[in-house]
């Protein structure tokens, strides 16, 4: 009995796996991303010490989040900014609506922000009749196609240059060349007028520095700078856990984020914004609003899942995940894709509707090894599976099966009998030791692989028989 989300998942997975071009591209992308990640981290003198540093400072910040949040908020306000602590997505949206109404904003430019997608901000703004323009190139592209982002840092990863050319040509009303620089130039022209005319800019936040109330934006394109410099009002939206204690801790956070995530020593732009413009500044927004979003994160605090809040959203886990490489980003049906998405989405949104996500993993551990913040992703996926079982979200037959299996493992004679029975049962189906078509759940195996049949005599039987014991040697 497949749930609707499992049906959707299977359909997306089947489509992605059947798409040879996409499979080859995802494999190439991952190989490139992995190499960039390894090369950039390899430049560090002691990469494990750097990972420890990032893991430790993020764990420390999360473990004392009430303290750092309070400090951060006080310092944003001390520099003239407004702070709103939003317990729920609805609270966050309501605050942004108030600001947009108060400023009578008609045109909003947006930098890339996963949390604004998480709280479903754009549909609300559009319903208000406000024009919202995504300015990050990847987000701009998927805004035009109406799709969800494909990867934490590469929203339009799944599209080819040709597809983007076609998309932009339709938008432009004329044939554009299939050349990345030319297409980028179109986006630049098209969006430049929006930047200059926008009433309000909305951005995400990569890190909040508690000691001075500074909002850090890590970007490469310049859209982040433009949307937080030109409009009169800047609204920055961030998850409550995205803090660092001070500027010194930014060294390892920024270094690891860019090296692990994109293979860069540093991103093209890092903007450190502390309050709105000062009276004597020539430019900059007159008002800064920082919206801190809980939306389920506080429920994770103090639980075995707390380590996932260390995540700095670098995307490395997706870059290294073989499952991501096969199923692509849309299969996760969430703003957050890849292994961290498989953990975070059920935690923020509940297991209902996402119960297949923790199982979409072979537990190979590549994500855990790649994570610069040492988020123990495979262990967290295992915990989610145990929670899914405990809460009755897995078929009862599996529990019965594992109970029976466990009982057999504690009684060697029962085990032995079971192994013999399996060997006997399999024999008629086996051809030179392999079964090509097995019944029941094993049929899922034999649909694609031969299944080795149990041996005539198990190891323990051979061990017990002196004539089949390998000779002793001194």
């Amino acid at each position: 009995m497949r749930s609707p989300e499992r049906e959707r998942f299977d359909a997306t997975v089947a489509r992605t796996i059947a798409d040879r071009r996409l499979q080859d591209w995802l494999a190439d992308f991952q190989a490139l991303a992995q190499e960039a990640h390894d090369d950039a981290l390899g430049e560090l003198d002691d990469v494990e010490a750097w990972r420890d540093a990032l893991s430790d400072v993020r764990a420390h910040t999360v473990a004392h989040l009430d303290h750092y949040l309070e400090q951060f908020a006080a310092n944003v306000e001390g520099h003239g900014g407004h702070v709103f602590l939003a317990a729920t997505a609805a609270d966050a949206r309501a605050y942004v609506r108030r600001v947009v109404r108060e400023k009578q904003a008609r045109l909003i430019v947006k930098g890339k922000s996963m949390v604004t997608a998480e709280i479903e901000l754009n549909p609300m703004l559009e319903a208000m009749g406000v024009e919202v323009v995504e300015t990050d190139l990847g987000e701009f592209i998927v805004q035009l196609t109406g799709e969800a982002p494909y990867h934490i840092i590469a929203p339009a990863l799944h599209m080819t240059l040709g597809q983007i050319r076609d998309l932009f040509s339709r938008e432009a009303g004329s044939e554009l060349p299939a050349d990345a620089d030319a297409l980028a130039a179109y986006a630049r022209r098209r969006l430049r007028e929006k930047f200059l005319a926008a009433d309000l800019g909305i951005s995400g936040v990569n890190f909040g520095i508690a000691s001075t109330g500074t909002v850090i934006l890590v970007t490469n394109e310049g859209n982040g700078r433009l949307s937080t410099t030109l409009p009169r009002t800047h609204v920055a939206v961030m998850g409550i856990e995205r803090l660092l204690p001070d500027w010194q801790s930014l060294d390892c956070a920024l270094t690891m984020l860019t090296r692990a995530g994109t293979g860069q020593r540093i991103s093209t732009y890092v903007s450190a914004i502390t309050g709105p413009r000062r009276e004597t500044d020539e430019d900059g927004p007159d008002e800064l609003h920082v919206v801190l979003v809980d939306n389920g994160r506080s429920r994770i605090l103090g639980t075995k899942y707390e380590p996932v809040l260390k995540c700095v959203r670098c995307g490395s886990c997706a870059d290294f995940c073989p499952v991501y490489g096969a199923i692509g980003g849309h299969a996760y049906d969430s703003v957050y894709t890849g292994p961290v998405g498989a953990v975070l989405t059920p935690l923020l949104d509940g297991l209902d509707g996402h119960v297949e996500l923790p199982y979409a993993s072979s537990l190979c551990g590549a994500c855990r090894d790649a994570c610069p913040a040492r988020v123990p992703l495979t262990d967290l996926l295992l915990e989610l599976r145990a929670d899914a079982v405990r809460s009755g979200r897995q078929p009862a037959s599996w529990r019965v099966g594992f109970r029976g299996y466990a009982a057999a493992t504690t009684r060697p004679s029962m085990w032995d009998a079971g192994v013999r029975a399996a060997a006997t049962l399999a024999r008629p189906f086996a051809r030179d030791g392999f079964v090509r078509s097995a019944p029941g759940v094993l049929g899922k195996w034999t649909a694609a692989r031969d299944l080795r049949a149990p041996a005539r005599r198990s190891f323990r039987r051979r061990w017990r028989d002196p004539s089949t014991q390998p000779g002793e040697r001194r």
Partner: protein
Amino acid sequence: MDRDAFLDRLAVRLRRRRGAPIPPVPRLRTAAVRPRADGDLLVRRFIDRLREQGGHAVVVADRAEAQAAVARLLDEQYPGSLACPPALRWPAIEALSSEDPSTAAFGLSEPRWAIAETGTVVLWHDSGQPRATSLVPPAVGFFLPASRIVERLDDALGRVTAAGQDVPACITFMTGPSRSMDIGYVPCVGVHGPGQTTVWILADE
């Protein structure tokens, strides 16, 4: 929910008392020793690292030489107005200077520091250092006194820390031209920010 209620909720989950003292911030602990670079090596590294990111940097003897280079550049490649804060201007380009970066062909700024390891200029946007100058024109440049080049990111961050609460509304760490990989993973330059960046390193300052 008011702020205290919000924070109380977090403290309860963390099994903490609000306002309880917190342990020191964990720092990078490594036995590895990175040899320090200075002087010419620092300048060299900055130039090389910026070039790797698609930017251009060159050493000039003094400010006058840099000014001459800018004038030539404007003449040959970027005809139009120059966005340049009054403090940086010199007589020869007064006529071209504009307060409006949105129509300028070129923007000129002076970084507070630069970071050699990454090829980054650090722009301290207080009064007289508008943000838009290094952002809106299609090509931008910087007059960088050589003495302001520090070796690593944490050196620059240490200097920011020293300013305490006296940080400006915006500090920009800028490394080369604007880039994106979002079009079919093909690198492209000058997407929203400037596509050309040049740094003149003033050897005598």
